[in-house]
């Protein structure tokens, strides 16, 4: 509960600072006088949300990013596993991938325009390429880092290639794969917004750029806030899914910076907290003993 309060507080403090700087028209080298205030942005936001374009933009951007990201997830995991498990695939695909990897996905806009008949497909292509490499690289690493004894165990049970893939490689690489997916979803947002700014019709990025060209600064900020919230929601979704699927990972009981759990305050307030720690440790021990 207290942690949520802190999180809300951090957002509120940032907004308060913004409001203070802009409403006071602070001009200390950084110039806030041209900046819209929080209330301007909020008013613009309310107007946009009640209009039809906002939701079209939102669903367009979401469709593009989800399509591109899901494609990237599937292709990235498949290619990563292939490259990590097969020397032939590594030799054939490795050099090509390593040459393409340093090219920023957004620099592929000309390629997308040449390749695809519609802008829509081009944007999905750029988004997909952006997320593909983080997923590929982290999948490759985590597949290579798998404990060999897991695979040997399945082989001595008579398991073949596909069994090893399904029962050892994919589940074992999952923690690493989700690391790549988390990075990938972030990069995807960057690229989908940039691509929309360059060549989109509808979409949050397109709208934000349009607002900028007609000097509607509150509108620009509405776009930025929307991108921020959407990005946060999607990366949280990826994070939660990852945590759910990798629950089997052993975790330390120690949480850095964690406060001891609250005990009943009506009993003596002072010794309650220290007493709770050895008590908790004891019950942990009791459980461990029971396991032996």
């Amino acid at each position, binding site marked *: 509960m207290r942690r949520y309060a802190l999180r809300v507080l951090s957002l509120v403090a940032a907004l308060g600072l913004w409001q203070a700087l802009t409403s006071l028209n602070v001009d200390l080298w950084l110039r806030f006088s041209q900046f819209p205030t929080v209330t301007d942005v909020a008013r613009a936001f309310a107007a946009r949300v009640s209009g039809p374009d906002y939701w079209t933009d939102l669903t367009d951007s979401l469709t593009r990013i989800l399509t591109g990201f899901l494609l990237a997830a599937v292709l990235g995991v498949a290619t990563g596993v292939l490259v990590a498990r097969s020397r032939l695939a590594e030799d054939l695909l490795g050099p090509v991938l390593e040459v393409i990897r340093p090219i920023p996905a957004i620099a592929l806009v000309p390629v997308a325009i040449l390749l695809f008949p519609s802008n829509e497909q081009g944007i999905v292509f750029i988004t997909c390429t952006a997320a593909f490499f983080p997923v590929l690289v982290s999948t490759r690493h985590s597949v290579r880092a798998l404990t060999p*004894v897991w695979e040997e165990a399945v082989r*001595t049970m008579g398991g073949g290639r596909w069994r090893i893939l399904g029962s050892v490689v994919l589940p074992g690489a999952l923690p690493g794969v989700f690391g790549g997916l988390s990075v990938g979803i972030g990069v995807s947002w960057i690229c989908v917004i940039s691509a929309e700014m360059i060549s989109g019709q509808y979409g949050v990025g397109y709208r934000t750029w349009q607002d900028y060209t007609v000097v509607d600064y509150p509108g620009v900020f509405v776009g930025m806030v929307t991108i921020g919230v959407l990005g946060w929601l999607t990366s949280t979704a990826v994070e939660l899914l990852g945590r759910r699927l990798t629950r089997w990972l052993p975790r330390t009981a120690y949480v850095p910076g964690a406060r001891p759990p609250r005990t009943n305050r009506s009993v003596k307030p002072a010794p309650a907290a220290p007493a709770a720690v050895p008590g908790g440790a004891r019950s942990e021990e009791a459980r461990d003993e029971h396991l*032996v």
Partner: protein
Amino acid sequence: MSTSSETVPNTPPGAAPDTSPETASGAAPVRGTRLSLSGASLGRPGATALDKVDLDIAPGEILTVVGPSGCGKSTLLRTLAGLLPPLAGEIAQDGHPLTGPSADRALVFQEDALLPWRTLRANVELPLAIRGVPRAERREQAQAWLERVGLGSQARQLPHRVSGGQRQRVQLARALAGRPRAVLMDEPFGALDAQTRAGMQDLLVEVLQGTGATVVFVTHDVDEALFLGDRVALLGAGGLVAVRDIPRPRERGAHDDPARVALRRDVLTSLGT
């Protein structure tokens, strides 16, 4: 030794009654397999661990293997499991050369080889799933095996939630659940304390009863080797030194039998040099 698993008179009541019906393996009873090495050189290319090994392991026999650490005990087991091809010579199962790993020869690892994302029961189910046993049946069999090693109530725990000794018991259950004809054990109790170890040895003797499986058991503990084995193979200095018969195997009271004491002294002497 090689009793079929249907005729298990001495399993304790409630222990794995449903592992007996013959399903996937057809009508033939599960029996031990003969493993033989002739003139075999084992190891990795460029690093031969054991040279010119001639060894014949009879069906249903428990052969223990002792030797100083680094002498190639694990190499021998991995080769028998089919994970490591021999550098020279021949390795055969029932007269046919080994080509690779097979469900016929289960390997119990020294280290923790359970899949950490599977519950204990799901780990034991794995060899059954590979053999194509239907879901309901493999769940039942896995549960029965876990009960047999005393972990029935923890079937739904993840491996990291139970102790090292319990994980090794699950590994044993997993190896036997696939009804292999040979069980290869690589210092399975090496990391356990003396007390847990003795308990595990008794458990092993008990669960092996009636499976008829051939067992090759690698250990660095001479007393463990002499308790469990019908014969003991001594490894050392790049090869097989000797194979000796063990008097009164698997009798706890036999440790002061004069023949056993003499054998123990011999084994220790040969390991000491």
